[in-house]
């Protein structure tokens, strides 16, 4: 993994080994938990209203909410998610598209080596870009 010494004085991984830091970074998450716990315990909620089935049942309600259809019992508070539904559809498609591109292994042989070598991508002509 040749490194270009002249551009900047960055050593390899050895000079600063991460492993020994061990669990110390973990403390940050414990600290966050402590803070969250304190805020939560200080807050006092009223009595929960609870969900009553209503004439179509909850799963039907979810389906209706998903498509902004008249929500019967839950009309008051539940908001429509149609817009979110369309967006999620496209997003999942894009995610698949991106993931497949990344995972796709270019056909072996010429292209891989050719591309790797030819494409200096900005490194100095003489630089190593394996």
């Amino acid at each position, binding site marked *: 993994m040749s490194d270009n010494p002249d551009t900047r004085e960055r050593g390899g991984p050895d000079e600063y080994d991460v492993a020994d*830091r061990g669990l110390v970074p973990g403390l*940050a998450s414990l600290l*966050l938990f402590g*803070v969250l716990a*304190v805020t939560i315990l200080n807050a006092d909620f009223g009595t929960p209203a609870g969900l009553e089935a209503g004439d179509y049942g909850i799963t039907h309600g979810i389906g209706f909410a998903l498509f902004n259809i008249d929500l019967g019992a839950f009309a008051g508070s539940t908001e429509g998610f149609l817009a979110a539904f369309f967006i999620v559809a496209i997003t999942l498609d894009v995610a698949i598209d991106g993931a497949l591109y990344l995972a796709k292994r270019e056909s072996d042989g010429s292209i891989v080596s050719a591309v790797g070598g030819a494409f200096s991508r900005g490194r100095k002509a003489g630089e190593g870009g394996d």
Partner: protein
Amino acid sequence: MVDAFAYVPAIVVLPFVSFLVALAFGKYLPKGGAFGGIAATAGSFLLSLWVLATVAGGGQHTETLYTWVSTDGIAAGIGPQEIELTFGVLIDPLSALMLVIVTLIATLVHVFSLGYMNDEGERDLPRYYAGLGLFTASMLGFVVADNLLMAFMFFELVGLCSYLLIGFHFREPGPPSAAKKAFLVTRFGDYFFLIGVVAVFATFGTASFVGSESFPVLAEHALNGEFDAWTPFGLDVGTWFTAVGLLVLGGAIGKSAQFPLHTWLPDAMEGPTPVSALIHAATMVAAGVYLVARMYGFYVLTPTTMAIIAFVGGFTALFAATMGLVKEELKQVLAYSTISQYGYMMLALGAGGYVAAVFHLMTHAFFKALLFLGAGAVIIAMHHEENMWEMGGLKEKLPVTYWTFVAGSLALAGIFPFAGFWSKDEILYEALVHGLNEPLLLGAWAMGLLAVPVTAFYTFRMVFLTFHGEPRTDTARDPHPIRWNVKGPLTVLGVLAVVSGAVNMVPVQKVLGLEGIDFLHLWLDGHYGGFSELTSHHYADLGPYSSGYIAGGEIPTVLIGAGVSLALALGGLGLAWKLYNVPEPAEHTAALGGIKTVLYNNYYQDELQVRIAQVTAGVASVADTFDQGVIDGVVNGVSSVSLVSGDRIRRVQTGVVTHYAALLTLGVTGLILVLGVLGGWFL
């Protein structure tokens, strides 16, 4: 009959035109533009004579020619707003007389330069004659100035011309540094003069010399309460006027080479001799005295300033004369003699002898110019050798020069019939008479008196060393012949040196009671023409002094004074005769013992001023290192601090993702804590 006054501006413009002509076409004109210069100065001389005649016929004239800054359209703002800066012309007995003196000597010097410069084959002549032309123009401009600002401007221009002419031979190392020294020392004097000019404007709102609105008249009213002059920090009017008087005096001391600022004149001898004759003997150096005379109405109101002027004058007279004793070069002796003679004039002005000062100014101009031109002639003859110990026995070979030189020397020494006696005697008389009830004035008179024998001694030491005895070098044996253009001016000035005394023989008039022969007194008293507030009697009754007499009456005082000063002069001459009128004169300075070295080094004044210059240069380099080090250091420091801190911040980016995640969590928790504590969630 067109009056002469319409031509007054022409007097100033003619030499200026010759300056332009010499500068532009000098190369192509014969003798490098000399004839243009001579014609111009001669023309001015004739016009000045005509003006003199008109003034004698009872005329006087003042007129504003060009408004530099008009103040129309300025409403009453705050502070001195309504100052109008103008250029104007003032012709009165004093200025008419001065015009004649300056133009006469300028013409003679131009003619003399033909011999001195052209015949000796000097190069760059156009630049020489241009310089002379410009000098004469600015000197005449100064003489006719009707207000202090115009006077100051031409005062400085004259200083510039002296710089250019002293540094004429700029290819050698000597003249440029002499020119620089001359300009710097006079500039130091002009600094005080400029403050004086600005102070006059601020105090009176005007700086004109003449008219009911002139600042001396306003000063008069201010002193008796009719005019509320502006004064800084609530000073009372009297002390403030004294201060302003002293400030303007600074300029006069600088230009007329009085005591502290005299060191530049001996070095100015580096310039060509006609330049020394014109500038450093007759005209420019007189500018200081003329300035004080011009605004004498203002000085008379402040007794302390008068006393200081007198004392400085007296001291310089004695101080410079002693230095003249031991000098070896011809021109050096004359230089110190000039300083001492102007000391006398300052003494006269300080002692209330307004007419005496002007009289000595006139006579001195003639015989000192004569002596300088004589020295010039000798230098031509000796192939530019100036050391007197290389000369001797020139009497037979240069008869005309010898006799005119002797006439000048007699006048300078103040021997009876010659001009010098009358003018110097009247100064001492005025000083004595006013000094009897003024101790400071008496001291000044004593110094003046003591200087008389010394002057006589060094003058005749010079004469005997140069002309008498055996020629000591072969050049002295067969000197270079001198032509008419040198002899002509010498003879004219020789006659004047002898005759000019007759203009104002006050002692004769007092002793013999022949009324009317003191023409100069009448002339300056407004008897013929002139402005009432500029006459000598007006100054006398404003003046602070009352005259006391010794041994009974006025006549005995006159006789005793004249007798004592003549006796001392003859004594000095006799001593010089005994010591130096021998075929093989020897250096007699051993007799002086210790003070010889002091005199040689001119009381170490030069070294003192060089010391001051070195100290300022030292302070300047300290300031420079401070500036580079501290102020610049701060600027560079700021930039390097920010770059170093930038480097520290950069290091936080370690490249490891888990660190980023950890710092991210810490950041969010921190924000929650900050907001929580402020918002009071946790309490």
